[in-house]
């Protein structure tokens, strides 16, 4: 009566609070039963299921989420620094792997250091190590060995947010 991966889907989205991404059998199952799951999460938990062509997650009702802010700061600084080096941001985020060492170098030298220092989870390289673990648990990145990671399609959610900011769609300020 329930879809094949019902338990895995519920655990991943609800208990692990992570992205389901294209390539996972759970993701295809979710998309095939999208109407059911949208109703299911809405009726049972009052949560909105956000499902795009290559990623999905449960949107929390909280609008001031520390993790979300930390991710925005991290990605914002990373994109800025990549552009400064003349790299193709979208292409690399979608298809390339990143060495932690390389990312650390960019973050250490950035002119946005002050912002990083004011952010608890991005303050120094040991805090950032925990942060990377957290990103992997939330499936925003996939670890490829000990030294390298790659972004999952989930990162596009945050890039869309940035686009919205540029177009003035996103709220300017909150107190």
């Amino acid at each position: 009566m329930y879809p094949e991966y019902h338990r895995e889907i519920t655990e991943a989205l609800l208990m692990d609070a992570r992205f389901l991404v294209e390539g996972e059998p759970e993701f295809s199952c979710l998309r095939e039963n999208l109407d059911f799951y949208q109703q299911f999460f809405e009726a049972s938990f009052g949560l909105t299921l956000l499902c795009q062509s290559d990623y999905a997650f449960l949107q929390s009702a909280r609008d001031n989420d520390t993790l979300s802010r930390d991710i925005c700061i991290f990605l914002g600084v990373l994109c800025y620094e990549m552009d400064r080096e003349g790299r193709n941001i979208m292409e690399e985020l979608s298809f390339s792997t990143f060495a932690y060492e390389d990312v650390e170098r960019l973050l250490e030298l950035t002119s946005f250091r002050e912002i990083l220092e004011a952010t608890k989870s991005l303050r120094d390289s040991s805090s950032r190590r925990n942060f990377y673990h957290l990103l992997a648990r939330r499936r925003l990145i996939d670890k490829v060995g000990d030294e390298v990671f790659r972004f999952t399609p989930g990162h596009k959610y945050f890039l869309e947010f940035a686009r919205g900011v540029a177009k003035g769609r996103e709220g300017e300020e909150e107190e």
Partner: protein
Amino acid sequence: MILKADPDKVLRFMVENFELVRSLYLAQLAGNVISREQFNALTKHTGDISANRLFEYKLLTEQYDDIRLNEPVRAFLAFLISEFKPLLPSELEKYRTSFRELFTAVQECPEGEQPILLEQLEALYDEVQRFLENVENNTGQLLRETQHLKANKDKMEYGERIRRARHLIEYYIAPLNSILDLQHSESIASLLGELSAFANRERLGHGYQLARDRFGQLHELLRGANERILRQSRILSRELLPLIERLQTESEILSGWILFLERPFRHSVPSFTTRSYRNFFGGSTDANLALFLEQFERRAEAVLLQEEEITAVDRHEVLFDRGLYVESLQEQLPVDDFFGWCRERLYQHEQYPSTERFLKICSIVFEDSELYEAEFTGRRIAIELEDFVFRVPEVRVSRK
């Protein structure tokens, strides 16, 4: 007409001074004209004779104070160096008028006026050829410019890049796409289709042999043209537009992040997902449930115990003499059945033997665990006390 030299001599002159000619071409490409100062700077190391020959051979012409390459020379160099300014689509639009006029003239050419018909067909052929070359050059140049912009070789600021990208889309790529759109009835490409159908009929049906040949040639060219246009239009829609759109998206993302990073702690953030700590089922659900229910059983008994305690008025009876039991245990070690021993002592020494007392006696071993050694036999024995039955393990206690 070049009066002062034969054509091959002019060509040789160009070969010998090709670097100079190339820099003149690039200067004109950048600034539309070559200023007198630029010209002087470029010819600083060139002898006067050569500098003058540039004019004598009509490679250069003077326009008031400025200098320009003669148009056929410029086109030739553009072809050689293969670097141009892309044509504005309105420059390509002019072909629509010339095609339309020549087409009408050919259609309306009266019978018996063969010579003019042949000339018109020839002109039409040349015009189509020029149009195709221009379109191909244009797409090629736009592709190079877009890739250049994408790779950001000039290390341009994102704002400048997006401005350039928008400019290319708005003024070059989108209009060029509509010129080449075969689906659109107003596009030049569909006009060429119409022309091709007409040529196809006439190459078989026209009454005059030479005209049939010309129509045949034109038809051949137009058939190829269709493919060439398709190829260009495919480059536009497959490579250029997505490339440049991505560039634009990327710039938007970047400017979004920069706006966000200006006030990172006050700006709103997208609502993400949070972990839910509601555990519904798990491997230990039944054990947890049993534990939970056990609490209630005990609580009922505890009330009973308290009542008994309250009835005790003699404080000496209530106080637990721990030393007494410790001494007694020390004397009798080793004890084979510790809990049994505890029960015995309880009835021996206590006026009101209660569960609470029993547990207190039992605890003396555990409180001083460093003094005793306990050995579990693995069996369980039942000890009855008041209304309880304790199922306790059989323990042998000895001195360490």
